[in-house]
């Protein structure tokens, strides 16, 4: 009985920590949505693009770790700059769905560019943190929890606290929220829309890079990251598109539910139900609480 409970705890904790990885991807998404009410479908592609560039800098040009990270972050700022100039600004007055479709196109561009520049083979990314159980926890609590999962959890926590404080207490954050609420009104009282957009897209790019590092260290840097990042979408639906804490809670829920279902119910159906379980969970949320746990209620005016 105790063993079973321990096993359940292990599955649950593993799932929760793996869920923070989804949260990291979702975070970039929320950031952009909060500041510009744009659904950025290319967040997954940004994850792939940034981490592949990071790997490329390190492995092809032998640039040291820290410098390569900074370079990759700068590259994401450039991507943000180009996105703002060439995609968002011309689409300023377009409908939500049009911008969404444009970001799907942007995702394709980023995926293609990344593969054209750095090749298509799977790259290994070594962060110096192993993807194996931490001995200390295994000895004392009898739980096998990967060091990488714990790191991802910590990183996610730090980023979320940082972003939360930024949005809540700084002048920039206030500007961001004003733009999200009504871009026209915000620009008419002198909030520089261009700078805000650039800032947000750059921040989302850096968040994507961090998320990509975590994913890359676990699964290898490869195209499949884009599909994994799609799972950030159900996370967002559960947590709410405009809520930073929602992104983390949503990620935790998805991570835990998908692991527990996979381990306890999956075997009856031949396994691999984690491929669709998050989406079906999201459908149930959509039916009963479309705005998610922490999102603002969706009000449409005629």
């Amino acid at each position, binding site marked *: 009985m105790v063993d079973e409970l321990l096993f359940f705890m292990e599955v649950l904790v593993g799932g929760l920590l793996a869920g923070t990885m989804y949260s990291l991807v979702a975070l970039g998404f929320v950031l952009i949505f909060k500041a510009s009410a744009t659904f950025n479908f290319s967040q997954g592609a940004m994850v792939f693009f940034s981490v592949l560039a990071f790997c490329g800098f390190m492995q092809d040009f032998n640039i040291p770790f820290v410098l390569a990270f900074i370079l990759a972050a700068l590259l994401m700022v450039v991507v943000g700059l180009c996105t703002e100039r060439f995609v968002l600004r011309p689409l300023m007055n377009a409908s939500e769905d049009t911008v969404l479709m444009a970001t799907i196109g942007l995702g394709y561009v980023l995926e293609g560019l990344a593969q054209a520049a750095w090749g298509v083979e799977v790259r290994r990314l070594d962060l110096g943190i192993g993807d194996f159980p931490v001995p200390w926890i295994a000895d004392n609590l009898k739980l096998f929890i990967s060091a990488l999962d714990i790191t991802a959890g910590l990183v996610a926590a730090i980023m979320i606290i940082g972003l939360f404080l930024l949005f809540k207490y700084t002048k920039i954050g206030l500007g961001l929220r004003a733009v999200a609420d009504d871009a026209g009104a915000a620009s008419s009282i002198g909030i520089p829309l261009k700078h805000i957009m650039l800032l947000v897209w750059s921040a989302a790019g850096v968040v994507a890079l961090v998320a990509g590092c975590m994913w890359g260290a676990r699964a290898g840097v490869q195209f499949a990251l884009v599909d994994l990042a799609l799972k950030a979408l159900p996370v967002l639906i559960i947590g709410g598109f405009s809520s930073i804490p929602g992104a983390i809670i949503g990620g935790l829920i998805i991570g835990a539910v998908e692991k527990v279902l996979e381990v306890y119910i999956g075997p009856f159906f031949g396994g691999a139900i984690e491929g669709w379980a998050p989406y079906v969970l999201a459908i149930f949320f*959509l039916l009963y609480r479309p705005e998610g746990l922490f999102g603002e209620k969706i009000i449409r005016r005629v």
Partner: protein
Amino acid sequence: MMKPVFMTYTKKDLINLAVCMVLSVLVIPSFITTEYWYTSILIPWLCLALATIGQQIVMGYTGQLALGAAGFMAAGAFAMFNLILRVPDLGFVGSLIVSGLIAAAFGILFGLPSLKVRGIYLMVATLASQFFIIWMIDKFGWFKNYDSSGIITAQDIVILGKPFTTPLAMYFVCLAVTTVLTLLAMNMARGSTGRNWMAVRDMDIAAESMGVSLLRTKVQAFAISAFYCGVAGALFAFCYLKSLEPVAFDIKLSFKILFMCILGGLGTINGAFIGAAFILLFPVLLNAIGNNVFHGAIDATIISSIEQVIFGGLMIIFMIYEPLGMAKLWENIKQKWKTKIQSSTSLKSSLGKKT
């Protein structure tokens, strides 16, 4: 507006249809003799154009952002396989219709969230259908007749006792099905059904207050869309792939169909054919350039990456400058020519009067 001659078709439509039929039934078979054109371009073009019409119905006409066309195609393809295997009395055409109906049932099930949500929320809900259907087919051996190899060979197409196995014959099968369904789609889009779809697309709340039932309209659009995708999937598997594997219907195909739909032109039927032709032919062209101009100096993976960049870039450009896609572009060119001819003739006649 021209007066309809037959159902909702005008005289111009009938002329267009006649031209298309002569082209596709007489001209193409007598001029194109290489098998490659049939097996690699014309057949997949017709199948994917049909699936794109399905996507158009739900996205272009009803305005619901759906991203699961390939899932419904898979449902149609595997339904077809099982129907021919287990209910041979149904015949090819009967099986095709029933497999379309089975896909439509899935369409209704996964279209239900559209009553509550729209935009990207709906996109996520339809992603569920994509992943769930593929998983279901993959994990339950019954759907694949307990074949362990993963790839099943599609049965031969037999209609009224006659086998249709040559590329040309299969082309005619695809052509017949596509023609019938395209005409039906045009009729629906122009009739009251299509008016309801477009009313819901343009402003669902206004449509509802004018007495259009949202439940009926949306579910109907999803069902018909999935029917088209299902039939297209069955044709895709039986005429083009000639095998059945769930992997062939993955999310990438859904995105491809989405691109065909958007680049071709939302809310148009001819856009589906234009978009499908473009997405299919462009990589062929790019490969030809890579092979002939650069003599294979560029790696094939780089060419496919460039292709992706161009598709994505075009998507952005079209969204900015012409959100209605290539069909609208084509319309604009025609319009320009017309006014040019008109203005030059009127200029001539006015000059003639003076002298």
